[in-house]
């Protein structure tokens, strides 16, 4: 009986599909359009609520003192100076380490590598590393840099760890940029007797530069925002003094925000919001620079 009914329903629904009902079918298109607009609005609305909330709770705390004071056990005396300096150190050092390695990898893979197993091995590894959770990199950094190489919980150990986190981003972006340079440029240079490296250095890299720089700024943004790997290697949550050199212990802005957010007092949540404004502001600035740089350099070539 039940089976019979379901067969009947099947026939009915098939019947419906074959019946030409343009209005109903167009209505479905229309409903989907409304739903998808709603999805976009909800997604972007969440972002707007997030930013609005952070601005409302954080702005009253944002002043020059907040930027130039060290952390404190009292919210009204706490500032982000040490963490901000730590973040800038971390960003600069990470890029200094990761940029040459990433670009060199990209040049090798695009300009030299054949289609053999070594190339495949490298490519599989890059793809997988891009998807490895950042906290795992933290465990690698803790073992390799902090323990085995004896760097301690220093800025250098943090930056090396972070360089490994962002390396796949730089490699992928640089490869795309290098690949986009027309083949005829290379052929012209080689035909005039330039060596492979001369061709790359004088004719490929200059044209790939805007893309490479954009990729690096993306990587720098990631390095600024990442928290987990640095907590794992043992970056401190409370540091009252500025680091003296790259072997000193350190903290960064996201860790400070994490620490303040974890405290029960309302005031700490508000200064965490103020810290977030500075963090997001830095990211915005960085990305604006990327856009401008790209526009300017692209005009030149």
């Amino acid at each position, binding site marked *: 009986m039940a089976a019979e009914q379901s067969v009947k329903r099947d026939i009915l629904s098939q019947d419906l599909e074959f019946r030409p009902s343009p209005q109903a079918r167009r209505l479905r298109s229309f409903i989907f359009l409304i739903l998808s*607009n709603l999805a976009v609005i909800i997604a972007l609305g969440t972002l707007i609520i997030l930013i609005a909330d952070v601005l409302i709770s954080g702005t009253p705390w944002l002043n020059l003192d907040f930027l130039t004071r060290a952390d404190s056990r009292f919210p009204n005396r706490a500032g982000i100076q040490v963490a901000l300096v730590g973040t800038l150190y971390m960003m600069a050092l990470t890029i200094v380490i990761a940029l040459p390695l990433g670009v060199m990898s990209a040049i090798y893979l695009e300009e030299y590598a054949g289609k053999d197993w070594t190339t495949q091995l490298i490519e599989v590894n890059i793809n997988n590393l891009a998807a490895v959770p950042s906290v795992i990199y933290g465990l690698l950094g803790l073992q390799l840099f902090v323990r085995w190489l004896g760097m301690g919980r220093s800025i250098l150990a943090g930056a090396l760890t972070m360089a490994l986190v962002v390396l796949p981003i730089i490699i992928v972006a640089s490869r795309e940029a290098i690949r986009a340079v027309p083949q005829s440029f290379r052929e012209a240079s080689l035909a005039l007797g330039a060596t492979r490296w001369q061709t790359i250095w004088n004719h490929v890299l200059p044209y790939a530069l805007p893309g490479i720089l954009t990729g690096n700024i993306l990587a720098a943004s990631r390095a600024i925002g990442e928290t987990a790997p640095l907590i794992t290697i043992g970056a401190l949550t409370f540091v009252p003094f500025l680091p003296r050199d790259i072997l000193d212990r350190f903290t960064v802005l996201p860790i400070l925000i994490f620490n303040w957010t974890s405290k029960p007092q309302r005031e700490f949540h508000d200064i965490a919001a103020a810290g977030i404004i500075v963090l997001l502001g830095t990211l915005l600035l960085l990305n604006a620079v990327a856009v401008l740089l790209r526009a300017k350099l692209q005009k030149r070539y």
Partner: protein
Amino acid sequence: MSTLDISLQRQRARTFGENLIRIFLFAAANISVFTTAGIVLALATDTVSFFAEVPLWRYLTETQWTPLFANQKFGVWPLVTATLLTSFIAMLVAIPFGLVIAIYLSEFASPRLRATLKPLIEILAGVPTVVYGFFALIVVTPFLKQFIPQISSFNSLSAGLVMGVMIIPLVASLSEDALSAVPDALREGAFGLGATRFEVATRVVTPAALSGIAAAVVLALSRAVGETMIVAIAAGQNPQLTLDPTVPVMTMTSYIVQVSLGDTPYGSLSYKTIFAVGSTLFLLTFVMNILSFRFVRRFREVYE
């Protein structure tokens, strides 16, 4: 020396330099291979010595996780279920939103609208995770409390929802790439038979791009499983075996954070636990990443 000799010498020097550069670049490219090897080695050493002290069967059969207490229990399941619970909630948000946005951008939106919307949605992926954690704890949880009064201040629901929003751009942009790669001939054929835009999108293009979409979903799941700061801030620090989204739980990643924040002595058993948990996490995400690459490859074989 004749000029020929000099030019030959120069030629040799040039070839030598070129080869040196090639070797140098090859070495740099291999950093990625060394990094993977380093991860495996770094995780394996302490994982092996952890399992020398705590047998594997205790890790897989006990139902409590209390390695920092006097009465030590090493059952990983509370951490695993918490990780899967938060990830599941995240996927409940990310898959429908990501897919609908992807279909919309690929099949409905004008090129101009698409060029505006895509970077705007990508911003969601650029927000640091610690900021999302703050948002989940300070904004979303109090908001949820209005509807679910018994919800705890730390819970997997709020963490999962916010994590889902964070992952929307990943699902959307990878799925959109897959949808856009479907040849126009398929669309034109369907339009020619009188199909509406919605029918073309859902019955022709989406099925054709299915393995690409599957790759996006699996990669997004892998991201959710490995996500750390949102759950460490908003989901709590209580390892308990539960599927209740309103109570505090502890994921694998938040356990690693919790131990890292304390001053755990190097070489102690609790220090080794983070590597055992880290290995479990790495294996789990590794399997998902490989699965995702498989899907991508299958997709490419069909259309590229």
